């Protein structure tokens, strides 16, 4: 391979350029968040995090993620099954519709739920009759978050399931397994890493969503403020250190999920590598 790759100086300068770019656009902002957070010392940092309103925001954020992530996982699995294992007309349109929330401005994502469930909204009469509150309450936040994170699991899973093919399912069915059993015992174990990967991304985004949630939250202190909203409020109150302290919570959360993801990738990589190794060994053995 040596002879076909670039000379070392090209390689190192490419790496350097990549580092520079990532440094300017990714790493520096991350560092900025942390330095701002600790600008006034660890005391302020800890106080900001221990504040009851922060804690209630953490609770709400976790609650919202705990609802919208499983919803999207269920959807992602169902959609991936239908799309990857069957062929039908209009697959492209369906895929595009699933992608759509990627392209909808978060502001609009929030707005549509206001238009739908607000007291001026389309569904207002029914909601009033049932005395249901959707927006400016947890359900609205969950809806907006779910909307924004809608494509993550499906998008992650569809290619994985497609790459997996139908062979094992066919084998299971030909051995007499029912649809459910095939799914639970054959398909699911095979895509578990893909699901986890999707969950991690979906979760990160769900916890970090700001725009859409801001529109539907109502900003009631200690009740409908999620972490990102809380960050904004602190920031607007000139409590910069506290704001960044809470932001680091989110950044750490993000980093933890990313580390988790890397770990997963590394594990799957290692697994497939082990498989490959074995192929080589096996073929060697065959010949012997």
């Amino acid at each position, binding site marked *: 391979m040596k002879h076909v790759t670039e000379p070392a100086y090209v390689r190192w300068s490419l790496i350097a350029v990549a580092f520079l770019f990532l440094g300017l656009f990714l790493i520096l902002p991350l560092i900025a968040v942390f330095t701002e957070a600790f600008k006034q010392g660890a005391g302020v940092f800890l106080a900001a995090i221990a504040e009851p309103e922060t804690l209630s925001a953490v609770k709400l954020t976790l609650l919202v993620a705990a609802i919208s992530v499983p919803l999207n996982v269920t959807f992602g699995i169902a959609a991936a099954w239908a799309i990857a294992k069957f062929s039908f007309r209009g697959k492209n349109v369906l895929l595009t519709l699933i992608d759509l929330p990627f392209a909808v401005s978060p502001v609009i994502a929030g707005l549509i739920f206001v238009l739908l469930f607000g007291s001026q909204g389309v569904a207002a009469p029914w909601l009033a009759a049932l005395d249901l509150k959707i927006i400016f309450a947890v359900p609205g936040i969950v809806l907006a978050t779910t909307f924004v994170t809608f494509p993550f699991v499906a998008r992650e899973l569809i290619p994985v399931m497609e790459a997996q093919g139908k062979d*094992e399912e*066919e084998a299971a*069915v030909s051995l007499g*397994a029912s649809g459910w059993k095939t799914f639970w015992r054959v398909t699911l174990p095979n895509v578990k890493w893909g699901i986890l990967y999707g969950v991690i991304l979906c979760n990160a985004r769900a916890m970090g969503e700001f725009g859409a949630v801001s529109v539907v939250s109502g900003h009631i202190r200690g009740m409908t403020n999620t972490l990102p909203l809380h960050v904004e409020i602190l920031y607007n109150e000139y409590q910069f250190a506290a704001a960044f302290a809470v932001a680091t919570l989110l950044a750490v959360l993000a980093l933890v999920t990313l580390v988790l993801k890397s770990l997963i990738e590394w594990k799957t990589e290692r697994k497939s590598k082990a498989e490959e190794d*074995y192929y080589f060994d096996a073929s060697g053995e065959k010949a012997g």
Partner: protein
Amino acid sequence: MSIEVVNITKSYKNFTALENVNLHIPEGELVALLGPSGSGKTTLLRLIAGLEQAQQGSILFNGEDNTNRDVRERKVGFVFQHYALFRHMNIFDNIAFGLTVRSRKTRPSKEEIREKVHSLLRLVQLEGLAHRYPSQLSGGQRQRVALARALAVEPKFLLLDEPFGALDTKVRQELRRWLRHLHGKLGLTILFVTHDQEEAMELADRVVVMNEGRVEQVGSPEEIYLKPANPFVYSFLGRVNLFRGRIQNGRIKLGEAEFTAEQGVSEGPAIGYMRPHDAEVSLHPPQSAAATAVQAHIERITLLGPLVRLELRRLDTKEVFEAEMGRQRFLELLVEEGDVVYVTLNNLSIYVESELQSVPTPALTPVHVTV
């Protein structure tokens, strides 16, 4: 159990993969489905298993219509080309799968399942590997696990898709022998796909030759080798030489060689097919008065283990053809590359182009030849 395929037609979008296929597979036979890539072998197998649905036609098991029956009810053992083992289960669980997914009522007890799996592992000679994962097995071992898994549910018959396709020659030979042995022992009906003619010839009781979605010929290996129904089968089964010539005045002329055609054959271009081992090479012109021998120049001699192959160029038409003989015979001949020899063309099959020109490839009809 016998399988009857009646008038099956299967198309994908704008492509007909199988066209009006009829096939009868008697109980207990070991049948090979032989054909070039894309000829529809896998498709046929999947239709029989119920993994695919035909547009037309029906499939009978023991005379009973199974066309619309679900895969799960067909009780077919299917072994996939790339094994399709469950990657995340060990060998034991793979083999036990078909039993453990049964509904509670029909499911055997754990103890029974263990017994069964172990007896299958013994059968496929993989005792001791029960706790390995598929990725830790060699290709040949995986193949046998796939077989054991299919056998676990006690299928009424076994379908195998290119069971030895991905394996080394050496391993392949071993598994072939083993499969035949298994067939003898269990007495199952087995249908297997291959595109290797030697494999089909060596293993099967009966060979089904397919091409472009049609069944070209069904018969014992010997039948199809010796009496190919048409040029396709002729050239697909083993090497073949092809001579171009004409029919004139009831005589078939292939260069300087001449043969007598049967009565009433129309005149025109003709093609002669001959197996290399039917070419009789000698240093001297043959005694017979008939002009069935041609002179040829030896361009190359290849030693192929038990066989020797000569590549020859006819002096009259400059056509290149091959002759094969046993090593002994070759040693007796004492020829070298560059020599000129006489070659008698035995067992020629002559075909003339059919007058029906509607079919895409010119249909060839056989002509009986007398020397």
